[in-house]
C-alpha cells in the first residue's frame, strides 16, 4: 500500500535559520515524489520533484530535498528561512495504477517564520 506521512503538522523557525520539513513514504512501486507549497487563499505551487534521477533535488526559492530510499524519506530543506516562506507544505507521492495516476497527499506541514 502507498502512504505519505508528514511528521510535523507545524514547524516554527526564526528568519535566517534552517528549515527542515520531514516526509516519509511507503510505496510498493518506484514512486515519483513531489513537494508543493500553498500560500493562503492560493492553489498549490510545485516546489520540486524527484523522478528517479538525481537523489538530491533542487527546487525553487532555495529549497531542496533528498530522496533516501533506505530511509524511505524525502525531507525538504532550506538553509535560511525567509518570511515569505511561511505557508503550508505538502509532500506528494504519485504512481501509476491501472492506467490512472494515483496521488497521495501528506496531511501538510504549516511553516511559521518569525522575525
Amino acid at each position, binding site marked *: 500500500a502507498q502512504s505519505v506521512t508528514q511528521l510535523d503538522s507545524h514547524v516554527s523557525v526564526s528568519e535566517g535559520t534552517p528549515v527542515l520539513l520531514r516526509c516519509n513514504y511507503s510505496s510498493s512501486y518506484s514512486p515519483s515524489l513531489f513537494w508543493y507549497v500553498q500560500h493562503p487563499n492560493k492553489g498549490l505551487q510545485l516546489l520540486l520533484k524527484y523522478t528517479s534521477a538525481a537523489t538530491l533535488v533542487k527546487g525553487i526559492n532555495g529549497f531542496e530535498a533528498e530522496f533516501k530510499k533506505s530511509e524511505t524519506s524525502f525531507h525538504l530543506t532550506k538553509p535560511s528561512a525567509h518570511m515569505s516562506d511561511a505557508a503550508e507544505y505538502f509532500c506528494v507521492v*504519485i504512481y501509476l495504477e491501472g492506467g490512472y*495516476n494515483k496521488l497521495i497527499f501528506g496531511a501538510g506541514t504549516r511553516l511559521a517564520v518569525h522575525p
Partner: protein
Amino acid sequence: GAGVSQSPSNKVTEKGKDVELRCDPISGHTALYWYRQRLGQGLEFLIYFQGNSAPDKSGLPSDRFSAERTGESVSTLTIQRTQQEDSAVYLCASSSAPGSNQPQHFGDGTRLSIL
C-alpha cells in the same frame, strides 16, 4: 504563460442549491484533476480525466457530485443539493501527460461556502 484558471473564486449559496464550478486547464494538458480541501485538512482526490479515456471517479464522495470534461478543454464540477459539509476549497490541477513523473499545476481554487 497562462496557468490553470478556476471560476468563480468564491461562491456562497444556500443549502439545497446546485452549484457548478469551472476549471480551464493549461492549454495542451491532457490530464485534469479535481480535489477538495476542507478547512484544516489535507487534499482529497475527487476525479481525474485523461484525454478521451474514461475518467477515474473513485474519489467522488456521493452521487450528488459529478464532473464533465469535453476533450482536453474545460471541466465543470457540479454539486447537486448542496449540504453544509460540502463547504471547502475545490482545487483543479492539470498536467501535460499521464506519466507519474509529470507534476500537476494547480489553480487558485474555488472557495465554496454553504449556508
